[in-house]
């Protein structure tokens, strides 16, 4: 308890709290789009594929500059989505296998690069392995500011284009018909996913960041069927998970942040699954009886 109080008064930690809150909110909102596009596992592939990007940038520039590393993450993450599409379009391999191939090969290659860096890099071993599971405690102020600012921007974009996204997701043909730039909007949604994955990996890690996109919207679905409400609710669920994860993992030494955030989200999902107003199991039982 003492540690909690003392850390709460710590300025850096306050930043971490705000950052995790906004990050959670943004990923809940963006995750709602992902869920409706049925791309939950593609987002997992994008997350895993961020690792080699981080390592390659480190190898090229030999500095641990977060912005540069994250640009690398964005590039390989984007490449992963394209590679999945390419494999599906150009061969008889089906979607699920294509995603699995990209996840495991990109991540495996990332690990190769990571170990290469650890063996060969001069000076500090770069601490890149925090990218795997995320470590809120290791974030410095500029990192957190990047997360906070980035998440805020992504939420803003999501809100600005909300109507258009909704129509594009629901009925792309119709959206095209009334003159919406559907491919631009799809591109923008892809950008949002890449961006949220990239700014989130430091805190949550590449292995579990996708959970933050998948779980809160899924939980929200048990309470509402309207996309607008669902996105906001997912955002709130994400924000709660983010804050819980940051607080708990900072208080108990040795707990990585990502898994705790994800467990918090899973807990909210579980509650929703049982008691959700729309399709919750308990409600269904009651109605049936």
């Amino acid at each position: 308890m003492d540690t909690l109080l003392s850390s709460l008064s710590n300025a850096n930690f306050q930043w971490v709290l705000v950052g995790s809150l906004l990050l959670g909110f943004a990923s809940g909102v963006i995750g709602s789009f992902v869920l409706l596009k049925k791309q939950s596992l593609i987002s997992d592939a994008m997350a895993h594929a961020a690792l080699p990007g981080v390592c390659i940038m480190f190898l090229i520039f030999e500095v641990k500059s977060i912005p540069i590393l994250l640009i690398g993450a964005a590039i390989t993450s984007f490449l992963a989505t394209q590679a999945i599409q390419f494999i599906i379009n150009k061969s008889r391999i089906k979607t699920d296998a294509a995603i699995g191939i990209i996840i495991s090969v990109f991540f495996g290659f990332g690990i190769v690069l990571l170990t290469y860096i650890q063996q060969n890099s001069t000076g500090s071993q770069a601490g890149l392995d925090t990218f795997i599971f995320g470590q809120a405690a290791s974030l410095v102020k500029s990192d957190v500011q990047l997360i906070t600012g980035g998440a805020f921007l992504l939420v803003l974009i999501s809100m600005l284009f909300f109507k258009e996204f909704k129509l594009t997701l629901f009925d792309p043909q119709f959206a095209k018909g009334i003159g919406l730039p559907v491919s631009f909007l799809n591109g923008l949604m892809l950008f949002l996913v890449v961006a949220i994955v990239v700014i989130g990996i430091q805190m949550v890690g590449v292995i579990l960041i996708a959970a933050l996109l998948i779980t809160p919207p899924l939980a929200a679905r048990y309470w509402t069927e309207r996309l607008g409400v669902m996105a906001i609710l997912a955002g709130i669920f994400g924000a709660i998970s983010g804050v819980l994860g940051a607080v708990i993992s900072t208080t108990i030494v040795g707990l990585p942040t990502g898994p705790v955030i994800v467990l918090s989200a899973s807990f909210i999902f579980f509650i929703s699954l049982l008691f959700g107003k729309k399709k919750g199991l308990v409600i269904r039982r009651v109605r049936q009886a």
Partner: protein
Amino acid sequence: MTYTLWIVITGCLVGLTCGVTGSLLVLRKMSMIADAISHTVLLGIVGAFFVTQSLNGVPMLIGAAIVGLLTAFFVETLHRSGVQSDAAIGVVFTSLFALGVVLIAFIGDQVHLDVQHALMGEIAFVPWNTLQIGGVSLGPVAVWMLGGVLFVNLLLIAIFYKEIKLSTFDPQYALLIGVPVVFIHYLLMIMVSLSTVASFDSVGAILVVAMLIVPGSTAYLLTDKFFTMLWMSGAIGILSALIGYGSAVYFNVSIAGSMASSTGILFILAFLFSPRHGLVFKRLRTT
């Protein structure tokens, strides 16, 4: 020399076991279930530790089989209740995996089991951890476990060969003519869990996923015969392990990561140059 040999044998056994089993998953469009199970068995291992207070082979296998089945069961239940299947997979495996990682953080001090290990394995330590019976060393435990699981898997595939084939190709027809489709499904889930946990200690989750999905997909591009696909997938797994080990030693990098990357390289080669389904020859044929 024997040290290297044991590592190579372990890698090859992982490639063979996961390759053969995984090719079935690729055909059943369940690759991502494999991905999920390879993550969640971590929870089974931790659970086994909580029960037995040791990291012993057999309880670990049992724990993994249970959690593997649970994963498949949860995914299916969620899917049946109306959640789209990829989101169902996503939510189940991240939850169980996160739980496993958090539990490890609590017991981490007591045992040699950390998250890094779970992801990448410790194949370099495999030769030290030998099976001792009556003071005689019988070779690494990992090799015995992998060999045992390989034997069980091959036996199950041999027994249920035509049932597996039919329920994969046309599950409804299989149901109609009395094939126990659900039983076969969960049997495969057990096979995946066993393969995963036997490989886990030496090569970690990443390589298991790679070995389960990629060699099978590669073989799928190279052949149109069911049986050929099975053994070819195993062979590609072995080849990946060998190439991966060689390059890992050469570049002094993670063995597991390097083996996973090798599966990717072989896949790209088949993707481009497979005589019948490769990109290059398809191009040539159309022009």
